[in-house]
């Protein structure tokens, strides 16, 4: 308990640095997630439509995912240096597979008979996508984004190793210095952010699937 109050006190006395770290952590996670969604949702849809593409594309992203994020940072070092950008790339790679796979699964799970019925009613391809396929695939797609978000928020602590900043800074310092309170200054907000994103996406899921209830 004492450790906790020390942690809070630290955050209060160093509020500039603390909020800056939170801001960097949130923005790096958000950007990584957005980029992953922009790249992987269309790719997932393409994979679902064109079966022969799904093998190579999914394989590629999954194999990239296998490289530990820390190793990705090291590999990128000579190419794009240090700081925000390489951390963003590593986190984007981490976020891609769940989004990709869930998009793919979501669109694959739409019954062909439903699409057939829609086109029988005279809907155009684009309309079927917007009005039928996307709403049906959305729950799975969103849960993929949710998984990715939690992973990214937790892993964004790694950015601190290469000058990317974020809450990992406090964790690394606390770990090195034998100071649990400092470690908590980083760890608790990371956990809270992860939980918040979980709740946030759960809400979005609820709202977006209202039609089903």
């Amino acid at each position: 308990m004492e450790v906790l109050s020390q942690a809070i006190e630290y955050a209060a006395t160093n509020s500039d640095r603390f909020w800056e770290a939170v801001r960097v952590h949130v923005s790096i996670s958000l950007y990584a997630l957005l980029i992953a969604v922009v790249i992987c949702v269309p790719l997932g849809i393409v994979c679902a439509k064109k079966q022969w593409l799904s093998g190579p594309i999914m394989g590629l992203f999954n194999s990239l995912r296998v490289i530990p994020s820390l190793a990705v940072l090291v590999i990128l070092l000579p190419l794009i240096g240090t700081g925000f950008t390489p951390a963003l790339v590593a986190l984007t790679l981490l976020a891609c597979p769940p989004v990709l796979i869930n998009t793919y699964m979501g669109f694959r799970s739409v019954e062909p008979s439903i699409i057939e019925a829609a086109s029988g009613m005279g809907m155009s391809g684009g309309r079927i996508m917007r009005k039928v396929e996307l709403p049906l695939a959305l729950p799975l797609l969103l849960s993929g984004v949710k998984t990715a978000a939690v992973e990214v928020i937790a892993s964004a602590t790694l950015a601190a190793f290469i000058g990317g900043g974020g809450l990992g800074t406090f964790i690394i310092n606390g770990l090195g210095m034998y100071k649990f309170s400092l470690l908590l200054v980083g760890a608790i907000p990371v956990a809270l952010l992860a939980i918040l994103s979980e709740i946030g996406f759960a809400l979005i899921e609820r709202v977006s699937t209202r039609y089903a209830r």
Partner: protein
Amino acid sequence: MKKRLMTIASVILGAALVLSACSGSGSNGKPVVKVGSKNFTESLILGEMYALALENHGYKVDRKLNLGGTLVAHEALKKGDIDFYPEYTGTGLINVLELPPKSDAKEVYDEVSKGYKEKFNLIWLEPTNANDSQGLVTTKKVAEQYNLYKISDLSKVAPQLNLAAVPEFEEREDGLKGLNAFYGKMDFKSIKMFDYGIKYRVILDGQADVTVGFTTDGDLTNKDLVLLEDDKGFWPPYFVAPVIRSELNDKDPEIAKVLNEISARLDNETVQKLNAQVDIDKKEYAEVAKAFLQEQGLLK
């Protein structure tokens, strides 16, 4: 057939039992020694040296090198997950025992020895002559541009410079906090943290201007880097020495003898050269450790 299977199974089971019974100690009755180290080049080299020398004396060694920072290594030692690891007197004094800094090497060593024994029942073995103190490092270009060679010059030009900090530096009393109190506030344009392995690269690439060095860093042999003089004498001595659990030390005093033999052969220059072989020449730390011991005649 069935009987045969039973025999084989019982032989395997028996062997497993015997093996597991032995795992607590080496085959010749000597204990298995669990060697730890922290997560940077120098500590890894030292840990490997200790491990090799003990193996050479017939001990079984369990290497638990590359533990995180001070916190992880110290906790592991207290719990008995490791039996000893190399620690720095200054770090023990300021960060573990949380005592005020001192500048006399002998006094610091005596104080940490006493404090560790009383508080944790841990023993500081004989120290090396390698003082891995901290320092601020800049590039030759920046030094010439700002006429920056001493830390006392830094507070004036700090607002124009970016600092590449390393883990712990911003938080430690013997880091930026204490430095600000001692030399006057240094208001750097920006402070970003980088891992130890890339800090010199960051300033050599111009992504920052000043970084934190350790005085035994191999990279400091590089002519393009300038170690700023600690002209007011801020940093305490950081002599490295193995810290060992006292039960093991009492049980088997030969271990201390083996380790002390290595410590006696290490000074600043030697350690800097060893670090350089890993950090600059990109050799494996295990090879570097082995080659050094062979050269010193400590390894058959």
